[in-house]
């Protein structure tokens, strides 16, 4: 079963910069895909198009058979709930505790509070932050913040995990730990699409690699 399909996708930003040109690819359910390439090659744009954060200028992006480009605005929140998003800059909310950050996706979906709390603790446990559930995110280290971001991305058990440079500025040890986490999710059937230029991580996980060069797919 194909999860994500891009056909002839181009993205031109206002001002005339072509971030992507004629990209076509298929990502199957349960696959682990690394999108690699230099900074500015278009990796992040590709992720944003899949997550319905950007609309393609031309071509079609299909997620679970839904055309992201023509989706009505009302439908977008529900499409996004299929994803767990891991951001390079984490995008944590610093006005609330670690626990409340992880609760957020469940609140949005409308989970029963007790069940939600149980799942949030399970997610925090998976990333090794259960001891810090009452802490404020600002007091966490860079690696812990990244792991918190991952916990928030997986707490609602999404079918697809989209991660932009999840090991971007982490020590090798932290990066390895996050690699193990990703592999564990993938093993329970989560589709993983990851933009990175961390070749060590790629070597550990042996994913399907798609290389982007100046807005086009290489090879």
């Amino acid at each position, binding site marked *: 079963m194909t999860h994500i399909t891009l056909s002839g996708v181009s993205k031109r930003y206002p001002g005339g910069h072509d971030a992507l040109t004629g990209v076509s690819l298929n990502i199957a359910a349960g696959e682990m895909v690394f999108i690699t390439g230099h900074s500015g090659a278009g990796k992040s744009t590709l992720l944003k198009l899949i997550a319905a954060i*950007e609309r393609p200028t031309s071509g079609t992006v299909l997620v679970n058979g839904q055309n992201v480009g023509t989706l009505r*605005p009302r439908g977008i*929140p529900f499409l996004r709930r299929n994803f767990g998003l891991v951001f390079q800059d984490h995008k944590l909310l610093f006005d609330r505790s670690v626990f409340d950050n992880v609760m957020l996706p469940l609140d949005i979906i409308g989970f029963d509070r007790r069940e939600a709390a149980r799942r949030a603790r399970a997610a925090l446990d998976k990333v090794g932050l259960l001891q810090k559930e009452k802490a404020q995110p600002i007091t966490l280290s860079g690696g812990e913040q990244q792991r918190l971001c991952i916990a928030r991305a997986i707490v609602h058990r999404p079918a697809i995990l989209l991660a932009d440079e999840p090991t971007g500025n982490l020590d090798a040890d932290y990066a390895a730990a996050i690699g193990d986490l990703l592999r564990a999710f993938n093993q329970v059937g989560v589709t993983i699409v990851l933009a990175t230029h961390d070749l060590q991580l790629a070597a550990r996980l042996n994913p399907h690699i798609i290389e982007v060069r100046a807005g086009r797919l290489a090879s």
Partner: protein
Amino acid sequence: MMGWFTAHRMAFTGTLNRLAGAPLTTLFNIAVIGTALALPTGFYVLLTNLQGLAQQYAPEPQVSLFLAAEAAATDVRNIEDRIKAHAGVASFRYVPRAQALETLRTRAGLADLLAGLALNPLPDGFVVIPAAGNASALEALRGEFKTWPKVAEVHVDSDWARRLDNLLAIGRYAVLMLAAALAFALIAITFNTIRLQILTQRDEIEVTKLIGATDAYIRRPFLYLGTLIGGTGGLAAWVMVWGALQIFNRQLAALAELYGIPLALTHLGATDSAYTLLFAAWLGWFGAWLSVRRHLIAYDPL
């Protein structure tokens, strides 16, 4: 899965926490809105009280007919017969001068003053209730009675009440205009408050949108915020007017004692109070709704 009710309860408690988290700002907001609403509410209360007084002291239109001082008993009977025969008269009452004096003595508390008089200065009179109570019928009766012999004065007693009614109608328009202007101000205040709140929460809005929050989910706490600010502002206005009435009534009590009549202003009744609070809450909601419509659209990355 939780229901619609739980989602609202969570948004509501979240909003309460946010308000409690910035108590000074909250207090000032409520004070500004309370003051703005207290003005028209106070005027409305005054008008309602005046109207009550007017109705209390002018029950129905009547024509008072006073005879000349030298009128004899035959003249009185003559007039009485003419009134009895008149088609425009529904009922009438003869008030002899002695009875008028007695009434004045007991009812108006002027006993001391009247005790000093050697002679009864009051004329004999008739109080006539006309068949038709409209202004032209009353005027016609007055004109006719005036031409009768030994009739010194004819008063249409509803005159002052009608003038007061007209004045009160003008007052009501003034209150309405004041209320409209200040309602607009209240909407503007909440619009701006919510705009600032959206700015301070822009990170949260952006993140929640990215992870699948619907517009309704994002809008809800802001709408609650506007409604709460408006509603508590309305409550503050009610309390301000109540306080003003307490002070005012203390002064009025002294005045009332001097004149021997009960005088006290009453606050809005339960229904009017409820309407005032609901209206204030609605204005807050509307200001927030406008603000959210205007400012949240800007945050959709798509």
